[in-house]
């Protein structure tokens, strides 16, 4: 059920012409793991729909790719929503795209020694590198998924020292490239990650004094959720197994490296979950995989991952039935993310929950830029996201960012408006770099322009609101004196630079712009 007054499926007169061409798409073979059973209520069902509407298209783009773009809509119209989801989930992971190559220049500083370019980024450099990707990537879902994992395996670059901060880039690259792979593998990768070993004290955890920090979060945040089948004894036993690493300052590179050191490792046998005996690998290798495998084998990891995915992409309040259905899909897929996400994004459960989650600041800012074409530099976006307390790379704690209505502080509302102001006011940058606001084709009148941007920003205008905005576009506002009627002229550069950008500001201050 959507937000009352927002029946996006039954389009009001105001939006006619924008959405009325429902894109009927035949479902491909519905391979929908669990959840398709007779007893499941439609809002808990993971069954694939038989057809997807234009609203479904916008919903997918808003939830999974920061926001709507006309190009993505056009692509879906061409190949259908299920095939688009397949494309979306099949992003290249070799890191060689032009956008990625340019983004990496943000990590490089003039003072970097030869051969170590990009190895001494500041926290801001790391954020700018990633924001550049979010703003411009041809595969926005790759960045959006990495952002989900960053919140799940939350590390802040602020806590890392200058000589180990490059590890934050490595960590984010793993999330970007391996986040679509197998979750069990990703958990193991994260457990051994250099930034993680520093952040949660794994590198200072030694046989004589195992540090429980990582082991506690391993269970509580990364795999099963607080108190779901493990005890304090398991934390202690796991922390013994999570030993064997140290950091070392390499005197030639002046970089801190994380490396295995058998001498620091507890090679004794550990017992997890009461009766699962873990014989050690000995001094030659770590025992991390043993703990990961035992946890996946004996605890309910699938339900925790299901809940986290639902909280990110579907609803703030997932039902027990929906969690159970998705957990079944996850187990059937043996934790491979691609089929799980495909099922999720094509499901009834996903498409029945439109515009009922709060759009967090990163989604809001990146989505605004991508939808309107009003490009900004990563530095500008970083400054605005700092005001909004959601800087990528710098979550406030190991718990990640707050969710839902916590993003709706009164001050945050003013800061969001100021983010939009900044985006519409970067005229010089946008002009000099060939970016332009994405106008509708042809010679649109004021009504067509209002409908176009309301639709791209997923705003369902009431009739009176639309009338107001059409009048706004058809009004000349002199710098002195009283405004006068003056029909909008799409060929007039000033009308674009002033009125259309102003329209974007007004629309982005609509309550619907806070929802996804």
């Amino acid at each position: 059920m959507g937000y009352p007054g927002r029946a996006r499926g039954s389009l009001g007169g105001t939006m006619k012409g924008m959405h009325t061409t429902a894109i009927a798409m035949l479902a491909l073979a519905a391979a929908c793991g669990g959840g398709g059973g007779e007893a499941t209520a439609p809002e808990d069902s993971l069954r694939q729909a038989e057809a997807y509407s234009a609203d479904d298209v916008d919903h997918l783009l808003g939830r999974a790719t920061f926001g709507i773009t006309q190009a993505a809509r056009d692509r879906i119209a061409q190949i259908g929503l299920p095939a688009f989801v397949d494309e979306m989930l099949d992003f290249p992971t070799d890191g060689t795209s032009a956008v990625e190559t340019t983004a990496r220049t943000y990590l490089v500083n003039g003072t970097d020694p030869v051969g170590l370019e990009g190895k001494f980024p500041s926290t801001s450099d790391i954020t700018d590198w990633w924001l550049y990707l979010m703003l411009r990537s041809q595969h926005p879902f790759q960045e959006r998924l990495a952002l989900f994992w960053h919140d799940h395996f939350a590390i802040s670059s602020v806590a890392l020292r200058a000589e180990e901060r490059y590890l934050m880039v490595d960590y984010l690259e793993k999330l970007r490239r391996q986040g679509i792979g197998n979750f069990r593998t990703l958990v193991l990768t994260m457990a051994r990650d250099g930034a993680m070993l520093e952040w949660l004290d794994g590198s200072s955890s030694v046989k004589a004094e195992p540090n429980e920090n990582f082991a506690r979060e391993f269970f509580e945040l990364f795999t099963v959720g607080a108190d779901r089948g493990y005890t304090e004894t398991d934390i202690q036993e796991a922390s013994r197994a999570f030993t064997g690493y140290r950091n070392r300052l390499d005197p030639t590179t002046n970089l801190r490296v994380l490396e295995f050191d058998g001498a620091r490792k507890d090679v004794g046998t550990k017992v997890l979950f009461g009766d699962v005996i873990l014989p050690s690998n000995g001094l030659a290798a770590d025992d991390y995989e043993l703990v990961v495998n035992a946890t996946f084998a004996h605890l309910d990891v699938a339900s925790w991952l299901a809940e986290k995915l639902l909280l990110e992409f579907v609803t703030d309040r997932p039902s027990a039935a929906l969690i159970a259905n998705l957990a079944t899909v996850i187990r059937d897929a043996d934790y491979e993310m691609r089929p799980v996400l495909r099922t999720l994004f094509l499901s009834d459960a996903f498409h029945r929950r439109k515009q009922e989650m709060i759009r967090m600041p990163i989604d809001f800012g990146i989505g605004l830029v991508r939808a309107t074409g009003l490009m900004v530099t990563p530095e500008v976006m970083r400054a605005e996201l700092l005001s909004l307390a959601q800087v990528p790379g710098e979550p406030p704690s190991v718990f990640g960012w707050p969710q839902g209505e916590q993003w709706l502080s009164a001050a945050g509302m003013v800061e969001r408006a100021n983010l939009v102001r900044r985006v519409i006011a970067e005229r010089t940058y946008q002009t000099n770099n060939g970016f332009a606001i994405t106008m509708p084709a042809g010679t649109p009148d004021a009504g067509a322009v209002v409908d176009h941007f309301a639709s791209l920003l997923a705003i369902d205008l009431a009739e009176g609101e639309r009338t107001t905005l059409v009048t706004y576009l058809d009004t000349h506002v002199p710098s002195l004196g009283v405004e006068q009627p003056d029909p909008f002229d799409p060929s007039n550069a000033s009308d674009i630079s002033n009125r259309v950008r102003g329209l974007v500001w007004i629309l982005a201050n609509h309550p619907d712009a806070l929802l996804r």
Partner: protein
Amino acid sequence: MNPLASDRAGCSRRDLLRGTLGAFGLAAFGPLDRALAASPLPLQPAVATQKFLVVVELDGGNDTLNTVVPQGLGNYTLRRPTIALGSSLTEPLDSGPYATSQVRLNGRMTRLAQMYRNGEVAFVHGVGYPNANQSHDTSKLIWSSGQRDGLLTANGWIARYAGLAAPTPLGAVSVRRGRHRALTGGSSNPLTLDSLASFRFDTDTAFTNNHRLRLELVREMLQAQAGSVPRDALLTGHQLADQLGAAVTGYSSAVTYSTASISQSLRDVAMMLQAGFETRIFYTGFGGFDTHAAQGSSTGTHGNLLAALDEALLSFANDCKAMGIWQNCVVAVISEFGRRNFENGSSGTDHGAATCMMLTGGAVVPGEHGVLPTDQDLAQSVLPYRVDFRAVYAQLLRDHLGLADPATVFAESFSSPVAVDVV
């Protein structure tokens, strides 16, 4: 029903809008200078009447041994050969009802010295926490969270207080401290301002009048919409910007503040107090106290910082007195740690442990509290803590701000070696 919607009767917003905005057209755009849409919440007309706390953070670790200087300890001059304050101290504090000969202030703090003699200042010696951490970041996090353990998941003590006792947008406010961790986390969203004057809907400078029209239209559309969580949040944001803007334009005071950032920050606090906001805790401060090299004595880096603080504290006190709210006021000057007892080879000081907290305000119990450093203490590397900072905060919450049970804010158990009674 979607939990975000508050119009649970089920009537659609669009239905409600018909009739309110239906006839809205050009005729509705009055002259540009007309007042913005009326705010349903009236601006507060009177000066704040509730008791309040202002925390002033000296960022970087203030060298309190060169701020509130213990007298008659041989190790002080022995261990600080180039930076010890000898002749460059304030006149003695040995007059008035709280006369002390045990400490004197850095010579740049003459105003605070006079306030002390007037019975408006308290010093709490030996403030810290168990197992002092000498990392800026970690120690700040301990002070900000009020926790010694579990720092990675900790939220701020002011955020917790605000969530319990002041859950309005202005219940707790920070000025010029960014998104300070003392105010983040938990269910509340305390307001974090860069400065009062900068908290507003930024103008599109290329088209100022058009921007004003846009703002009006946004407000009129919000006013016309039925209540919902996002709509109400936006409207509250607009009201807040109006209220803070009115606080700036409506402020009048005979008190002069210097242009130093801490003076301007405390002036922002005074503006909010004069506007009558319900703010219980203000958080502000300034940096530069990480004086590892050439910190100077009463002149030089450290002395200049203290002079800025001294001037700001007096201006703020005078402003509060002019408003008649000095008796409601406690200003707590804190820092994440003190510095080493001995100077380093660069005529500076490295990170230390316990610190001297300074309190001013009509509500404080003046004089000296806690335990003064001894000569034996100064023979050590860092000062030991005798008062847990949480004991001071907890007393301020209970006896000053009226929070029944401070343990609801400071849940981690602690025992202060020495009890304090500062308000």
